[in-house]
């Protein structure tokens, strides 16, 4: 109980003296990391490795990305391992601040330095030339050959990620110019316009010479997608691609993403906090909480048979469109995400968890493997506690069995036959 009390109040104050000491210490560490990254003429063997499984596009292995802030070390990504198989969509879900964006930025080497640093672990990636690199150890200059061309990113806010002072066309051309030096200006323009057409922009020639502010939110996001796809990357990282958009536009963009993924034969890492989007798009799901993966597995395992109490809580806290009939009180996970600067050495979720027991306050749970690569980090399923009489989370029926027709909503299209609703003859 005392643990619970202590954790609820996460904000702690530091004196200026303490802060200065931390800053001094951080500076030492950061300069060392920066020096490492800025080295010239590094031998390639230093950052070439082998993939565990050649059918994967990218493998994250025990990745640690820390931010050395003046109030302490923020462990934004704290030991994350997962893979993205070729041609698949991997969804990463979690609350804001759980490290899902930092994971993807690490894969692009775009973590804001010198404060943010990849401290430990590796990110293995095979280029289209067949060389396998460890992105975590790659020098900055070498990374430019991969970033944008092999791995590209669609950012969250189309409003802020496009440069307002350049025309759409110029911004699209830039990426091509850098990676294809032998193309002529007219060829580049033709390719850019073709790309705009591919992402479903009507009248691409006009849009090519427009400025970003002249476009609507959906159009800007399409331009962002065109920009990400223009070099035909093998891996697209989509960081909340639809969060700023309306549902109707979101549906358009998600369909577009599925289409282009097939046309360039790429894989997608889809980062979102919307479980509905994940359910419709992803093949594999990774659930993150406070910088660690709490559960990962195939889409059906996660949605039909979630194990970790956090995943179950997330599912239950959704006001679902498909269960209009049983209006019970919405489930909510109490409390808040712990402060990433002062993480406890036991399970990060236990003080919000309804099922926690003594062991949860002693050490961080190891990954427990279930069938077919489904894993969860929770003591409830550990072998050594198998015999304990613990109450394990139960999914409400409507989620566990929503494939039944009774819960699936059928939305009529076009004219509703209101006469038959008023006089339901057939039922009698």
């Amino acid at each position: 109980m005392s643990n619970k009390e202590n954790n609820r109040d996460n904000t702690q104050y530091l004196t200026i003296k303490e802060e200065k000491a931390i800053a001094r210490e951080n500076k030492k560490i950061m300069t060392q990391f920066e020096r490492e990254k800025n080295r010239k003429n590094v031998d390639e063997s230093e950052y070439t490795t082998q993939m565990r499984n050649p059918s994967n596009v990218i493998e994250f292995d025990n990745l640690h990305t820390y931010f050395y802030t003046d109030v302490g070390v923020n462990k934004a990504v704290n030991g994350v391992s997962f893979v993205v198989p070729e041609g698949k969509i991997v969804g990463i879900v979690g609350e804001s601040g759980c490290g899902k964006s930092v994971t993807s930025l690490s894969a692009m080497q775009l973590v804001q330095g010198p404060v943010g640093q990849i401290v430990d672990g590796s990110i293995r990636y095979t280029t289209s030339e067949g060389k396998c690199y460890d992105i975590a150890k790659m020098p900055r200059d070498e990374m430019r050959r991969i970033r944008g061309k092999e791995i590209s990113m669609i950012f969250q806010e189309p409003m802020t990620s496009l440069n307002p002072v350049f025309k759409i066309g110029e911004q699209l051309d830039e990426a091509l110019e850098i990676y294809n030096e032998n193309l002529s200006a007219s060829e580049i323009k033709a390719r850019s316009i073709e790309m705009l057409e591919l992402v479903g922009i009507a009248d691409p020639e006009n849009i090519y010479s427009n400025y970003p502010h002249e476009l609507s939110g959906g159009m800007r996001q399409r331009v962002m997608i065109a920009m990400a796809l223009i070099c035909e990357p093998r891996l697209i990282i989509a960081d909340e691609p639809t969060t700023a958009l309306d549902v109707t536009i979101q549906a358009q963009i998600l369909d577009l993403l599925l289409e282009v993924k097939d046309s360039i034969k790429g894989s997608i890492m889809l980062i979102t906090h919307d479980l509905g989007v994940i359910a419709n798009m992803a093949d594999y799901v990774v659930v993150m909480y406070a910088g660690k993966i709490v559960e990962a597995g195939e889409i059906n395992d996660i949605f039909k048979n979630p194990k970790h109490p956090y995943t179950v809580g997330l599912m239950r806290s959704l006001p679902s469109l498909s269960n209009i009939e049983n209006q019970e009180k919405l489930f909510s996970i109490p409390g808040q995400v712990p402060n990433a600067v002062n993480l406890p050495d036991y399970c990060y979720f236990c003080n919000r968890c309804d099922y926690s027991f003594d062991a949860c306050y002693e050490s961080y749970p190891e990954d427990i493997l279930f069938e077919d690569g489904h894993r969860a980090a929770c003591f409830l399923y550990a072998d050594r506690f198998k015999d304990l009489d613990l109450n394990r989370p139960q999914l409400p029926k409507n989620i566990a069995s929503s494939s039944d027709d009774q819960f699936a909503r059928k939305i009529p299209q076009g004219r509703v036959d209101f006469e038959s609703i008023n006089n339901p003859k057939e039922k009698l």
Partner: protein
Amino acid sequence: MKKENSNENFVEVRHLKKYFPAGLKGTTRQYVKAVDDVSFSIKKGTTMGLVGESGCGKTTVGRTMLRLYPITAGEVFFDGVKINDLSRRDLRKMRPRMQMIFQDPYSSLSPRMPVGEIIGEAVREHNIVPKEDLDNYVSDIMNACGLPYRYSRRYPHEFSGGQRQRICIARAVALKPDFIICDEPVSALDVSIQAQIINLLQNLQEEFGYTYLFISHDLSVVEYISDTIGVMYLGSMVEYGDKKSIFKHPMHPYTQALLSAVPIPDPDHKMNRVILEGDIPSPINPPSGCKFRTRCEYASDICSKIKPEFNNYLDGHEHEVACHLYPQDHQEQRVIS
């Protein structure tokens, strides 16, 4: 605890219009028709949800109702009082009874005021409680909203998004209002926090009998919290009625498209999405006739000529829709040139 005795409408909006001038002064004045002829009513103790895409005028409806914007045309009644005609002094007396919770908890709290002061300021201004009871009152309100009183000396930046939204709710609730407009109160929050805030709003409603206008673009949240729903498109209401009826038989093609676009968190769910083509048209020159016709796959000639009228087609349901797919009244057909 919903009051059953009062059948009359607590809040009523009739033909509300709000135009914003656009373009330079001196040139021919054009107007952004942000809200164009919207009517609805809310019964005491119930919640009405207002849904629609961004830019359809949902927020403007809410703000115009409170006269945060001057009303261009139309009438707003609140508990039998016509809001349009109130003098500034009378309006100020009404203000505590009508409160608003804003969308973004990050920008709607003054960063230079401690939380206790934020919540207590308006209470003091409107003399809700005697001066000496103010601290106790603020403490009660904070507890009711799930904020420990020891936080009252802290500043907004020390709180997380969910807690800030609780502060916004506490600020609105502290004035003992009857009617609260919630303008996208959960869209900036995470799923697990979103559920906490929705539950808080519902508990407060059960305890104090508030009437809510719940503005959101998230249909699943609106479905959960509302009793009646209005669907807006480009400044106009296209469908309005009882929640169950709207979600069971959405009649307007726009409502159908909106509902089908919501991703269902279930991998087995068969998607039969109606994907709308294109973007929402400019509200400066909205399409003639039915405003939705430019994106509607069922549009015919009549849609561009005649503005469809609101009609109720379902017996026993409060459910009105304005669409030419359904027979229109023959009384008068206004032809729009």
